[in-house]
């Protein structure tokens, strides 16, 4: 058989996978173990993986020592959600235009949108900072939401466009023949049919927005109550005496929402990551 392996091939494959997955997952295991250790055994030499008196204490004490932890998590969630919603408002019509209509300069316009992918927030941080300052937008949610939105749009358009291209044209032509307006057709015919594609784009945009809040919040925001989780915790990371077990506990609780989303929707996420690029 084609896929029958000899015993030593099994050994090789599993050994390779073990090394590979150890590299990928070891930090998570270590973070979890650290969050369980009391500080005294955390700062003991020599290093031991399992120490005595392991407990979930840090998961309770962190709420007192990081009083704004709830706020950070809610802010992260709120900013990512706002970026995703604003992103979709831009992505859906644009992807529809690129997928369905012939118009002059269509391909070059699409190329320009894709080219935006080469920038990150870090490249444009100086003018953005000056603009936010000029319009009094520093230290607002807006300053953290608007730049993030721009950077989820190109990938979103690319992904959704390749999905929309595959929807049969007859569908909307039938609607037009029946006298439906073009916006009505997009809203009542295309969007319902394209829902699986939109789900992929939504998840990809949300994860990107959740992952990339750091630099905007670090640069545009100095009001602690508005900080998303990464910057909120960064303040504790920078201190002389980092309370590592609580920092790790807070980090793990903070990534729980996205891990949750990922585990249940991973099929869509992997599809979104790989679809557009491989097939085109």
């Amino acid at each position, binding site marked *: 058989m084609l896929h029958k392996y000899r015993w030593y091939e099994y050994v090789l494959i599993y050994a390779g996978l073990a090394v590979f997955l150890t590299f990928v997952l070891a930090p998570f295991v270590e973070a979890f173990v650290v969050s369980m250790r009391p500080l005294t055994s955390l700062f003991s030499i020599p290093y031991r993986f399992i120490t005595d008196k392991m407990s979930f204490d840090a998961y309770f004490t962190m709420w007192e020592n990081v009083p704004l932890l709830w706020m950070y998590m809610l802010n992260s969630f709120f900013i990512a959600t706002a970026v995703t919603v604003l992103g979709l408002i831009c992505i859906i019509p644009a992807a529809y235009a690129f997928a369905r209509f012939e118009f002059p300069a269509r391909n070059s316009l699409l190329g320009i949108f894709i080219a935006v992918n080469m920038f990150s927030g870090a490249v444009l941080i100086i003018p953005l900072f000056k603009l936010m300052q000029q319009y009094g937008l520093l230290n607002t949610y807006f300053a953290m939401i*608007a730049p993030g939105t721009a950077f989820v749009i190109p990938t979103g358009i690319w992904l959704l466009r390749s999905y929309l291209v595959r929807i049969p044209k007859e569908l909307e032509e039938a609607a037009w023949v029946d006298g439906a307006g073009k916006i009505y057709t997009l809203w009542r015919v295309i969007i319902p049919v394209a829902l699986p594609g939109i789900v992929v784009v939504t998840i990809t945009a949300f994860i990107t927005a959740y992952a990339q809040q750091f630099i905007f919040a670090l640069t545009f925001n100095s009001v602690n109550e508005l900080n998303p989780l990464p910057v909120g915790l960064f303040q504790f990371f920078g201190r002389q005496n980092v309370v590592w077990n609580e920092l790790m506990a807070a980090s793990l609780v903070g990534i729980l929402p996205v891990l949750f989303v990922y585990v249940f929707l991973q099929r869509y996420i992997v599809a979104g990551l790989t679809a557009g690029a491989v097939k085109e």
Partner: protein
Amino acid sequence: MAHTAKKRDYFPYLLLVPATLVMVAIVAYPLYETFRLSFTNTSMSPNFEYVGLDNYEKLMSRRFPEVIARTFYWMSLSVALKMLIGTLGAVLLNAMVPGRTLFRILVMPPWVIPIAIGVFIWGWMYNGQFGMISGLAQRVGILDAPFEFLAYKNSAFMATIVTDVWIGVPMVTLYLLASMQSISKDLYEAAWVDGASRFYRFRRITLPLIIPSIATMALLSAIATFNSFDIIWILTEGGPRGATTTMIIDTYKTAISRFKYGEGAARTVMIVLFLGSFMFVYFLLLSRLAKRSPNNAA
């Protein structure tokens, strides 16, 4: 003629309005501003003067070419490792062994979580006194004393690369895995019937057919790596003694930490030139692949 029958249709442009507005406000106008600022001595105060090419002349000093060289060294090493580990990972995950669905799910977490949070964890692991890496290395006998990875130039340089690779590998792996799975099974069966060994099949079927994907991914990965900010900023802030100061970090320090917006903008213009040339190569590659694809048996 077709165009006489149809009246000019503005609808598609209408559909592009929201996306275009965001792009103009967040990308195009700031980009123009960057060029303008780069010819000024703008700083904290509201007054500024146009200083011609002064900011660019200052970049000619010895320090900045060093930053460029370091950026490319950092990027090349990181991308090379990502592609190597990602290809190996994809080959392993492509093997039809029990448990493969679970293994594929387990690859993604570093990409899914906020970058900054993953970096916090690495920050602890690099800790010399109590961190896992130094601790385990001492147990096994590789190190005989605690080693503070982020305190020395070379080790800090490598440490930031390892963390960057850790964050980038899941994406590369799954992308190449998808590319491998799109190869027709018939090819493998035909080769198998002819008695080709597994390694031979990999070298003569899999590898040639995924090379375009590897090239595409390497370019995308290079762009992302060039833009990398969070990892270095959190771990070392560009230190020790500038050892991990890439162009992005250098620009951020100049403009945001030292308020020299004009000089920072000149650095940004250099970054945009480099990124633009990467993007140019990327589009070139895509159009060449698009021309070739109809002949692809796969």
